[in-house]
């Protein structure tokens, strides 16, 4: 048993750090320094820089353009990127539809789509949820009617994050309405420029346009854009969902958030106050414990093991800790937490985005499988408790 990285891994970490020191543009670095919000163009700028280095998709197999890193190196890379405050890349292409196309797509689909996901030439978004069918994904109602060599889509998707910036959307649609819920669903890829597709941005409670309602009105989608078996989209979706969960522990983001809380507390003269210091320490202790659970998952993955029971708690607890970190930042700011975002001169640079992020972060225990859904799954699959 060993908690340290091997000399090779440490060398790799140094390489990442030194590269980050050189490669991060001044504008992004300045924003990272104060944990400011990145605009989509900055995210894509950073995507292309990582692409240039070959590190944009550390988890992709080499045959599709991945860098061939070990599991530990992948972990180190992710952690260092998070700790440096680099922009988070959009996961929809790199971590969701990309791997789905690798696993379920035809060679033609792989050739057509994967290179442009990697390069960032095509930006993706996700069309799963529908109004009135949040966690109960299988009750979706967007229809795809057979029309020769194409399907014709009609319906509405919601919570399509950053659809306003996307070139493509992957969707679950109902291709057979005669069978029961999970059956009859297909996984299709839709060009956002197809006539009849419209993405209408919605404001969140953080007052950022993070997601859209996306409408489909008689949208023709060639049958070559179905991924996996016709009516077999549920299998593709399930494979993606499992992947999504492990993305969201985001220990590095929470570490950075706690670091920010401490810096704000120091600026307010509260870091030497026993009560405030202890509140921050209690949260950091919880995060350190979660980080160890994260390391256990990583070490298992490095050995090629499937994620163990400890991985199921990562999303559940990770999202709570991330929320609490921003709640604590608000509490430390005290009266200054009355300020809404982008109020330069009223609160410090470090504090600009706290209120908006605090509000929007209520979503972390809802999206990607709500905490309640996670608990249902753990109760059933891990603890073996009987169904209701």
């Amino acid at each position, binding site marked *: 048993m060993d908690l340290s990285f091997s000399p090779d891994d440490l060398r790799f970490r140094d390489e990442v750090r030194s590269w980050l020191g050189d490669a991060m543009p001044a504008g992004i670095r300045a924003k990272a320094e104060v944990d400011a919000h990145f605009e989509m163009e900055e995210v894509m700028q950073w995507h292309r820089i990582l692409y240039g280095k070959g590190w944009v998709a550390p988890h992709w197999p080499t045959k599709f353009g991945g860098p061939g890193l070990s599991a530990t190196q992948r972990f180190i890379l992710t952690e260092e990127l998070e700790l440096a405050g680099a922009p988070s890349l959009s996961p929809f292409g790199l971590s969701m539809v990309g791997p789905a196309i690798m696993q379920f797509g035809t060679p033609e689909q792989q050739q057509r789509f994967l290179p442009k996901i990697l390069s960032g030439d095509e930006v993706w978004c996700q069309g799963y*949820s529908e109004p*009135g*069918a*949040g*966690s*109960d994904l299988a*009750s979706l109602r967007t229809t795809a009617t057979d029309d020769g060599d194409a399907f014709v889509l009609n319906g509405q998707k*919601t*919570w399509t994050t950053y659809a306003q910036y996307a070139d493509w959307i992957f969707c679950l649609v109902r291709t057979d309405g005669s069978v029961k819920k999970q059956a009859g669903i297909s996984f299709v890829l839709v060009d956002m420029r197809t006539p009849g597709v419209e993405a209408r941005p*919605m*404001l*969140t*409670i953080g*007052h950022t346009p993070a997601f859209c309602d996306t409408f489909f009105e008689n949208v023709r989608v060639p049958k070559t854009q179905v991924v996996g078996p016709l009516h077999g989209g549920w299998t593709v979706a399930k494979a993606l969902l499992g992947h999504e969960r492990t993305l969201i522990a985001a220990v590095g983001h929470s570490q950075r958030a706690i670091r920010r809380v401490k810096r704000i507390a120091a600026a*307010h*003269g509260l870091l030497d106050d026993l*009560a*405030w210091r202890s509140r921050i320490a209690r949260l950091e202790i919880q995060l350190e414990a979660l980080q160890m659970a994260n390391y256990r998952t990583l070490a298992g993955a490095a050995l090629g093991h499937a994620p163990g029971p400890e991985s199921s708690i990562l999303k559940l607890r990770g999202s709570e800790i991330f929320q609490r970190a921003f709640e604590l930042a*608000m*509490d430390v700011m*005290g*009266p*200054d*937490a*009355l*300020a*809404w975002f*982008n*109020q330069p*001169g*009223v609160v410090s640079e470090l504090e600009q985005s706290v*209120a908006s992020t605090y*509000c*929007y972060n*209520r*979503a972390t*225990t*809802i*999206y990607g499988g*709500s*905490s*309640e859904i996670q*608990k249902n799954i753990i109760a059933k699959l891990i603890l073996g408790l009987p169904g*209701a």
Partner: protein
Amino acid sequence: MDFQLSDEQKLLRDSVRTFTKQRSPVTRFRKLRDHAGVTGDGWDRGLWREMGELGWLSLPFPEAAGGFGGTLVDVGLLLEAFGAALVPEPYLASVIHAGLALLRAGSAEQHARWLAPLIDGRSSLALAHAEAGHRFDPQPRSTTATRDGAAWRVRGAKQFVAHGQHADVLVVSATDGEQTQLFALPRDHAALRIDRVQTIDGLGAASVHIDGVVDDEHRLAGGDAALALDRAHDAAAAMAVSEGLGICQAVLELTVGHLRTREQFGVAIGSFQALQHRAVEMFVEVELVRSVAVLAAVRADEENDDLRRRAVSVAKAQLATGGRFVTQQAIQLHGGIGITDEHDVGLYFKRMHALGVMFGDEEHHVRRFAASPSFAPAP
């Protein structure tokens, strides 16, 4: 011991509820908020005037000052209804926080000059008190007032002045080195610079810079300004609890309604036991906020400092924790739509955060409660 409302109080409560329902439902708040950036208005002077005509703006002031001579319990009923409807007019900031400070510290002539127009709804007030770096200090520290012949030289900066961006008259706190002074200044006074600030609750506020000479007639000269401030903070804290109670109740109703009607997996999600129990935990907190709202409203007028402060701090701390829990869980139980700006639950959530912070946050009131003389046990 009596928790019954008088017939007059029931009448007041019902008329305020009817008013908010007809004239100021939550949609009105949203509309004003969304247009505030364009027109510069987040409230309606016409409606304020109407409130004056209805006598509501006179509620907490004694008859001698042209008021109705009501109690904070009466005001609490009004603010509870205002909270439930997110009424954007600055009752808490103008009538309670600034108005009661002006009442206690001002002379009869000053009441006539600045309170009377407020009571009529022809004017509004704001209390410019909080200073950067001093969190919830009840007295001014960095804003100074120095004698300058017959006048005063006042200098300093105030932050997050609720309604300060719109108020006709700002009541500014300062220290003369020995004691606290309050000055009532019209917004166009040469010593003032007022900058608009956006706030989390969408109501906005002002940063106020003061630097100039102020005639002595503006100095409130009818009572102890330090005491007036202290009591105004407590009254405002107590009334923030009433407004918060209105929010809690509205949010609980929204959430229970959602649980009853929203279906997933073929059944109403309100039939899932884990969600039922969460709703019950929300209900418990709402009932506790309801209980302490009464406590604070009754005791905020209490002359005994220990009794008053204990009660207000209990209530404000309970609102901060309970109100936060209720609004956070309301979002969680609403799921994705709770995260959108277009759903009301987020508006309530953000106003609740502001109410939790204003007039002292949880940490402040826990410390004040723990420091009260009656906290330590008899040996």
